[in-house]
């Protein structure tokens, strides 16, 4: 009795939040599954614009990796966006809004060198996991 209850509890949490390391392209791809499981993305890219202020404490900027570029917004709700230097690699955590094509960041900071060097590995790891996940989802 106890065990089945416990297994039930575990199962209902099956679609729990995942944090996925992604390049811009793969983030856009995996974002189509956010209706099935909540996803938060870790994206590394070069700051490719000035940081401009918008309404409601918004800070807007452009992130680029390879040929892809991504409009980003960070809302200064509980803290200010740190000073960011154009041309440097940033590490952003956030959600992708497919309709508006904008990456809503909750955490933005310069990426460390080890992070940059290992990022492709984490993208690979997340890709494998998400591919397997989507496959099982389609089977069900």
């Amino acid at each position: 009795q106890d065990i089945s209850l416990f297994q039930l509890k575990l199962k209902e949490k099956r679609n729990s939040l995942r944090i996925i390391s992604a390049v811009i392209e793969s983030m856009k791809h995996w974002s189509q599954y956010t209706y099935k499981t909540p996803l938060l993305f870790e994206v590394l890219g070069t700051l490719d614009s000035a940081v401009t202020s918008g309404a409601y404490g918004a800070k807007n900027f452009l992130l680029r990796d390879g040929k892809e570029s991504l409009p980003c917004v960070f809302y200064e709700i509980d803290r200010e966006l740190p000073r960011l230097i154009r041309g440097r690699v940033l590490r952003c955590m956030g959600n992708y809004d497919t309709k508006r094509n904008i990456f809503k960041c909750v955490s933005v900071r310069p990426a460390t060198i080890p992070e940059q060097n290992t990022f492709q590995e984490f993208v690979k790891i997340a890709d494998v996991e998400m591919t397997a996940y989507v496959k099982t989802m389609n089977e069900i």
Partner: protein
Amino acid sequence: MAQGVGGHTEAVGPAQGQVRTPDKKNGLFQFNTGLCCPFRSAPKSCSSYIGSERYTFSFTIRDSPTYFINVNSWGREEYIRSLSESFRVGDCVTIENPLVQSKEGEKEEKFNPVTPSCYKLLISENHSVVKTSSCYEMDTKLLSLLHLPVKDPQDYYSLGDITANGQSLDGRILNVLAAVMSVGEPKYFITSDKRKGQRCEVKLYDETEMSFPIICWDNESIQLAQSWIPRETVIFASDVRVNFDKFRNCMTATVISKTIITTNPETAEANVLFSFIRESAQSGALHDKMEEQSKESINLETIVDVYTVKQLKEKALQSDGKPEPVFGIIYGYISMLDIDDNVSKVIRNRCSVCRFVVNEMSNTCTFCGDISSDSKSTFVSFDILVDLTDHTGTLYSCYLSDCIAEETLGCTVQEFLTLPEDKRTALKWQLLLERSKIYFKITLSSNWRTGLKANILSCKLANPIEASQSLLGKRLHHVAW
């Protein structure tokens, strides 16, 4: 545990007066009583198979204060495994149609608990049935046997007596009555002949000795030990072996295949010890000792298994609610950390005597009871619930508390309380959504909202190189689960 069963002895009648007379039912002998087993062996050990095919498993059952009997079962691996997994020490079992055999004298008792019966029972897959019933269906008379030592309650050595006798007791087998000071985590290793082994050290104490190690090597006793509550549980361990540990220069005890452990015995002698525990907790005498041991009992270096959140949940599902905790490492992120909103959510008062979280309303400690009612005897400490997320999912409501929270946040609870809100927010973002190496201990609990109780043992920012290699390599140092 490896007595031969070749040349089946004829099924002798019920062991007169030794176990209750079996009822004859449908031509089967049925021991028609619930029987609890205060001892059971691991289903398989080095000596437990003959050739490659036969496995054995033994346990001891009891149905009266005076009488108990050893039960052996032999058979295919699957049968023995499923049998051994169908009940635990303390469960009630009914055995139908066992073979009743005469004991083989001394040889028998060398590796099995000494029983008053001159018989033993043999269970076979084809002829016998073992039924288990839950504790709710159990006869209260049987339940009370769980707390009755199998030896004369007065026939025990105090820990001080063992220490005082020292090396002259080396190798002796005797009984111990003592309280549990701390339970170490099971440590896994591979023997030189490539077998998996495990070891768990429990520290005992009594009026005469503050710290005395007893070592468990088998899965059954390790599981049992994991259920003990430090400073609350008293055990009567019959037939443990005591040895002189040259390396540590002290006496130690070891749980062996003859040992039967009675948890929280209901005897006058144990009651004296219970009072001693209570008094020493109240006087604070144990506090330093406990501090010291709580640190030493979690040695992070021994934790090597790396899990993803998904693997961990799968492991937990497979474990069928086994009580032993899982220690491991997750490379992931803290995805929920609410320390800058409402301080009262992350701070709890603890009892300065025993470090338990005190009741919020009354500000009293449930463990030490009435003595902590004045607020001076409590101190503030962190008690933070965090979510852990990786690329495979999220583990909700993990505990980050007390000293470990202070280490993780890099600030003491006192410092934290003086921080303005924006500084708390800054502190939060040093950890939140940053890739971390998290050591954890998971205990299964159906009472828990999530089914799992997760305690964080350490949380530091991860080295990305180490994390990626570990996740890519998937080198799971898997050992006994």
